[in-house]
């Protein structure tokens, strides 16, 4: 069984920025992603208590290496200044490259 190298981009941000992130993914022709609500602490303080609007969300995207750079740049440029957000990239292996 052969595994192909691709990238996993993980974005953790305030839930109200989820739409913006997915919009950016769409602009790069990426439609596969996974999301879930999380809580957390960071530069913008403790998040996740209280109302749903004040939660964080994680968005995880498995994608080909060549797309990473554009997506990360767009997110950094448009969302880093105003939103509670972090992102990181890691290496993963998948079976079906045609899916990503």
């Amino acid at each position: 069984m052969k595994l192909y190298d691709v990238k996993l981009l993980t974005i953790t941000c305030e839930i109200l920025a989820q739409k913006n992130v997915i919009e950016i993914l769409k602009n790069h022709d990426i439609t596969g992603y996974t999301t879930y609500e999380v809580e957390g602490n960071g530069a913008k303080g403790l998040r996740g208590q209280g109302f749903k609007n004040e939660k964080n969300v994680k968005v995880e995207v498995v994608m080909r290496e060549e797309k990473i750079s554009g997506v990360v740049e767009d997110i950094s440029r448009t969302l880093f200044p105003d939103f509670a957000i972090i992102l990181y990239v890691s290496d993963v292996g998948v079976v079906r490259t045609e899916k990503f």
Partner: protein
Amino acid sequence: MPEAISEFLPIYLLAAIGLHGGIEMRKTGFEEMLIPMVVAIGLSLLFTLNHYQILRRLGKFNIFDSYALASTYGAVGAVTFSVGLSFLKNQGVSSEGYLAAILAVLEPVAFILAIFLTNMAVSKQIRTKKQSISDDEELDIGMKQTSTKLSQVLKESITGKAIVILLGSIVIGYIIGKEGFEPISIVFDELFTGAIVIFMIEMGIIAGQRLEDIKKVGIFLTAFSVIIPTINGIIGVLVSTALGLSLGGAVMFGLLLASASFIAAPAVLRHAIPQANPSLYITSALGITFPYNIIVLLPIMFTISTWVHGEEAIDLFNYVTKVFV
């Protein structure tokens, strides 16, 4: 806050408000509603502009925070409205059913104005830059994004869940009338006060967790969060009394104008004016204005309304022990 409460109760409150409003409107018809609604919209816009001037000039907030806060206080709060209804019910006083419709219509008004003006300001800045430097593709994109955002936010707030539920249940209430309401009145009427109490307990816990944040809000904004609702609310009571609203109706009209939005505001403003600091408007609206409105301002407005309607004032002392029930 368990999701059972945070997600479900606001929907429930909106549905209950809408149903009651619809049932009442069936009795009175639509004509009566027109002038109060137009006046409410006018006041909401006027107040929003006024808040902006105060926040920008006196408070020295930046454009974004100023517009965000201005509209938070120009907008309305459905939870505050619910507490008002339940307060009146306890006092045995009724109010005009169409106020629920005014609540629905007012919901987006202040936001739309503030977003429009913020975008104007941003576009102007961009244009100034553009002229002074040179043609720049990025600025074009910036402007395009700005205007797309406005129309998108407009569309979203008008078709937003809160408004759909509120208007939908007004229509349903109107259709089914008092009689059709019978089998569900236990859920949407008798449970109403209890549901609010549960919601308020949880909100009290949340507010308690924010005590730290409230300290950070600063003296100016703290004063703003108390004085502005008081002025807006009293103007509301007086104007609506002049328009012929009943004792209870005038209180609710005043409460609409006094209330600040703390559920809708972050959802709308975080997308429309992301540069504004959300903890400012959430903390002041939820942590200061909301408790002030229901504990202090509501009985004050009730007393004023009683005076101007020439009826006997409530026993304020007795009220204090009852405010939450």
